[in-house]
């Protein structure tokens, strides 16, 4: 059995998660400090992909990157390549679809963070970057980890936008979800079922990880409050 779709899915989702992680933390950090109304607008704008149908996201990516578009024709003339129908087109799709998940989880972690710790850091003469790296990020670790796991899982299963921008080309752009669709459409139910099972086990493993972190987090919090009571 050719495992290319699984490897491809993992590759796409890993790269996309790394990108959303950086973007999500950056946006969450800066947008949380903006004045109220700009924050509201930015928030809405950045979380729209969460409620948009993935096909709409896919369509918008196609419109902006197809050889007919400005960006697409620029790439075609300068690098003589196209983005659409390549595996990395799926990375763009997955980044856009998973960004809101990462952004919202990280931002709520930042927002529930005790501001006094930041103030304490500043009165101690620490630089903003040091406070960010050594105080904010480590103390929001569980929220950030949750964002990573959720984004990665969503990325593995992404179908709508991916199928529009990367299609299904066996051994080139096939992912686990597009493979299931392809086998089903071509009446190869046995193979479709295998990929369904693979999908199920990935989802199972992801949820297990999420629950593990969740439990670890609450038990460490309980331990802290026990000590406070003592």
């Amino acid at each position, binding site marked *: 059995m050719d495992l290319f779709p699984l490897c491809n899915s993992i590759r796409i989702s890993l790269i996309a998660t790394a990108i959303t992680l950086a973007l999500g933390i950056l946006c969450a950090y800066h947008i949380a400090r903006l004045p109220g109304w700009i924050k509201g607008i930015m928030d809405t704008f950045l979380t729209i992909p969460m409620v948009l149908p993935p096909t709409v996201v896919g369509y918008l990516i196609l419109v902006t990157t197809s050889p007919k578009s400005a960006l697409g024709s620029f790439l075609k003339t300068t690098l003589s390549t196209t983005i659409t129908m390549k595996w990395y087109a799926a990375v763009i799709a997955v980044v856009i679809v998973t960004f809101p998940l990462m952004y919202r989880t990280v931002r709520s972690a930042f927002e529930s963070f005790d501001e006094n710790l930041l103030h304490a850091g500043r*009165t101690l003469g620490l630089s903003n970057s040091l406070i960010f790296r050594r105080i904010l990020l480590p103390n929001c670790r569980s929220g950030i980890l949750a964002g990573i796991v959720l984004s990665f899982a969503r990325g593995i299963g992404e179908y709508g936008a991916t199928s529009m921008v990367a299609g299904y080309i066996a051994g080139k752009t096939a992912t686990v979800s597009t493979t299931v669709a392809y086998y089903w459409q071509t009446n190869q139910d046995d193979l479709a079922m295998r990929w369904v099972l693979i999908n199920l086990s990935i989802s199972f493993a992801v949820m297990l990880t999420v629950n593990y972190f969740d439990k670890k987090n609450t038990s460490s919090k309980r331990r802290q409050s026990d000590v406070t009571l003592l």
Partner: protein
Amino acid sequence: MSLYCKIQKRLGRFLLDVELDVGDEVLALLGASGCGKSMTLRCIAGIEKPDHGIIVLDDKTLFDSKKRINLPPKQRKTGMLFQDYALFPNMSVLENISISASRASRSDVDALITTFRLEGLENHHPYQLSGGQRQRCALARMLASGPDLIMLDEPFSALDTFLRWQMEQEVAATIKRFGKTVLLVSHNRDEVYRLCSRASVICSGKNEPIRTKHDLFFHPHTYADALLTGCKNIFEATASGRQISIPALCATFTTGTTVSDIEYIGIRAKKILPFFMKSLDARTIDLHYEILSVTESMFSYILLVQPIGGSQPLYWEIEKEKYPEIRQHKSILSIPVKEIMLLREARE
């Protein structure tokens, strides 16, 4: 070393309007919760930005709204002990103290660990520490950054009574070693009295002029002064010439000089005497009374008594050994006129 701070900041309907001029001393900001004490400290530390005003520490201008100077907190060198200590939960005691190590060398950190008796706890995390250890760690961390001014925000509020006393000694020693300007925010009059040299009362955002603690505690000028220094009996009063009348007690008395702007009088619960114990040459207000309730404390009884003809009760604290005599010769109490505090509403 000195701090001059004159700032205004509006927060909705609340206006913070504070002026302080502090030398190398411990100044207490005394006030009820929500009066703007902590906000004042946060403005000095640079965590909050005042609307107008000027803050100068030694020769360094930290904030000046006219010259558009507003130094970020990290350049101000103002150390702050937060109410909940704000220790970094992800770091060990050693890391907490040495994170500002660019200013403090390793040997300084070691010295602080010894001074604050944190040896053996270097690798513990804040959640593994007791309340007292947390506070010592926070004090050490604050001093490791080499501040020019330290500010203590309700330093003992998170501790239980037994630890409070111990930590007060610790803080007193720290303040003494530090030797520069210290601001202490508190609503506890005893702490303030023991730790500071001068104090300023803050009442709904405005501070009253700084006074020595003796002056403030023994000669309060305003209603807020009297209340915050623990006076339990405060009544409305009206003055005409040298005559002052207290309608709530149905009593009048005369003062040595003419007073005009008196709106309240205060009587400390411990200064009230039974009639048979008053000295004969002292002028007193003598009142018949009924006892409404008796509360026993460790070394005294606190009586709530109703003066006959008056409309409000009086708190009267009396030593335990004198209490039986009151039971025998009950019904007249004496308030020495020289112990009555004449109070205004607020500062002009």
